[in-house]
């Protein structure tokens, strides 16, 4: 690894840290711009009770001081404060509880979509303009255009209500099948298209022709030369894919009642649990930023042809 690559990596890490700080700052000030504070609208609160509650949660202090405390707690203790609606629980505990389920869902969905997408994409590229290719392209175009909540709801109607082969409730292991399929369909379709076009690109390169001319077998060309190189662009999609899976899980967990972080986030929005909204936004955002960072670095390291800015 050259010093130029190292410099790029350091720069990229700094940008990622800066982005996370921006997210924390935006989240904090935007949430505190809500008029009336989080306790307005709750039943049976007298002004005295309200003042006591605000003192307890530190909301009576000047805004900048609250911001300082919030930032310090996150950096030093990874502490996002207590939840306002689930009394007595810390935001970070609720999040880590939900993340266990959601991570399982997300990782399985990501693996499935990577495998299915790469295989289908390679097959479509090798069978270019034949029936399989056409079918794959039409299907993936349709899947890419369908919002995840619609895909999820349609799968729910079809498999859980009409055919009754899979449970609609995501709280059981069998119930996770439908949410995983829902989450995996879009990235799988996207990866298929990506692999197909990059495979076609690679197959047209000079070194493939050279290998053919030297009499290398078709199988060896595909697995030894073409596939590996055509996967590089696919690698760049892993950051965006994680972002998609995170936002997609918000609605998918709502549709299938999966007890994950997405459902916790959505319900914290509806019942205005401000520390919970802030904590979840920050953690999910940081996750996406870090994943994009890893993708970017990996991309530059794997493909030395990429010029570093």
């Amino acid at each position: 690894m050259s010093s130029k690559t190292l410099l790029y990596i350091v720069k990229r890490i700094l940008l990622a840290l800066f982005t996370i700080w921006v997210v924390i700052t935006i989240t904090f000030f935007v949430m505190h711009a809500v008029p009336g504070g989080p306790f307005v609208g709750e039943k049976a609160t007298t002004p005295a009770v309200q003042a006591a509650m605000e003192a307890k949660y530190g909301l009576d202090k000047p805004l900048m001081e609250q911001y300082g405390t919030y930032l310090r707690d996150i950096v030093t203790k990874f502490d996002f404060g207590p939840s306002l609606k689930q009394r007595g629980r810390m935001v970070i505990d609720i999040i880590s509880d939900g993340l266990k389920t959601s991570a399982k869902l997300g990782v399985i969905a990501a693996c499935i979509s990577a495998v299915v997408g790469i295989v289908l994409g390679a097959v479509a590229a090798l069978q270019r303009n034949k029936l399989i290719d056409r079918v794959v392209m039409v299907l993936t175009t349709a899947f890419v255009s369908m919002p995840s909540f619609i895909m999820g709801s349609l799968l729910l109607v079809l498999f859980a209500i009409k055919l009754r082969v899979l449970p609609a409730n995501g709280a059981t292991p069998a119930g996770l099948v439908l949410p995983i399929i829902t989450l995996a369909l879009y990235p799988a379709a996207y990866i298929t298209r990506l692999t197909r076009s990059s495979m076609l690109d690679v197959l047209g390169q000079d070194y493939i022709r050279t290998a053919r001319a030297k009499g290398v077998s078709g199988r060896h060309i595909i697995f030894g030369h073409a596939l590996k190189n055509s996967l590089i662009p696919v690698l760049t999609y892993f950051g965006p894919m994680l972002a998609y899976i995170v936002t997609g899980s918000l609605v998918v967990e709502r549709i299938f009642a999966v007890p994950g972080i997405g459902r916790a986030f959505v319900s914290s929005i509806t019942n205005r649990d401000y520390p919970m909204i802030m904590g979840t936004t920050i953690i999910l955002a940081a996750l996406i930023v870090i994943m994009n960072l890893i993708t970017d670095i990996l991309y530059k390291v794997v493909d030395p042809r990429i010029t570093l800015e």
Partner: protein
Amino acid sequence: MTKNPLSLQVDLDAFLPASEEDKAYMVQMRESSTFFRDGVKRLHKNKVAFISFIVIVFITLASILVPMFWPYSYETQLGVSPGKPVDSSYNNLSPFEYGRTEQAKIEAGEKVFPHVFGTDAAGRDYFIRVVYGTRVSLAVGFFASIIVLVLGTLIGSIAGYCGGRVDMILMRIVDVIYSLPDMLMVILLATVLKVKLTPVIEGTALQSIGSNIISLFVVFAILYWVSMARLIRGQILSLREQEYVLSAQATGAKGRWIIRKHLIPNCISVVIISAALQIPSAIFTESYLSFLGLGVNAPMPSLGSLASDALNGLTSYPYRLVIPAVVISLIVLGLNLFGDGLRDAFDPKLNG
């Protein structure tokens, strides 16, 4: 008099001056074609894009025209009439069923307009709600992409023209906004703006649009201009350096001519295409937010909120989910395919 075939006499007819007809026959030039006409021709040949265009036009026209003659409105609860108890026979009608008073009218020989998709849980005609929801979704997508277009063009061209420090600062801001996870920020801003805007717009003309839609536009204005700005800046930077611009300058073309003849035609296609592709993404975002309860304000429907409402009665009335789902997929698919077709037709450089 017939000519002697062996005669060496020259045929004088061959030396007559050519008639206008003969001259026209010799001209090899066709009518000159403009950039725009070429593009339209290419677009016409692309069947997929053409069909998508027809589908989009059909859906748009239907969403505008149908409410004009449809006898029901999207907010009227058919079972509720002033001074009478609520007639619950109107709630949750299946397609082509009628409420109690309507049944009586039919038996009396009157004609009653059918509820093509039945009614929803509050007794509102579902067909007109879907039509109206389509209109709302399309309008949101259209205006949001115009906001993005205007802001992105403005900031992108400022950065491209000024260069130097202005460019650097603007592009660093773009970098940071670009790396923010957009959906999460949209949800956050929409949550807060919803609370903050409601009292501000009360009593003004904006109230009828609803705080959620306005906050959606604000969110789009804040977050989604960045990719457009990047695109425009890049275009301007590269176009300024092109040889044909230099050659036009060398042959004495004035700045205005260069802008009109070279810069705008080369830039506008890219701008319009990315604006067209912005519409489905805005519709997508709106339906997503509506699904999470952050979209349009009730009783106004949008395709996302209709799908979201349908989840509650899913076991008994799955068609109520399927209908808006199909419409939304048709719109997004149609706009995407048409946008791709536009790009192929008007931006030959991208074809590679």
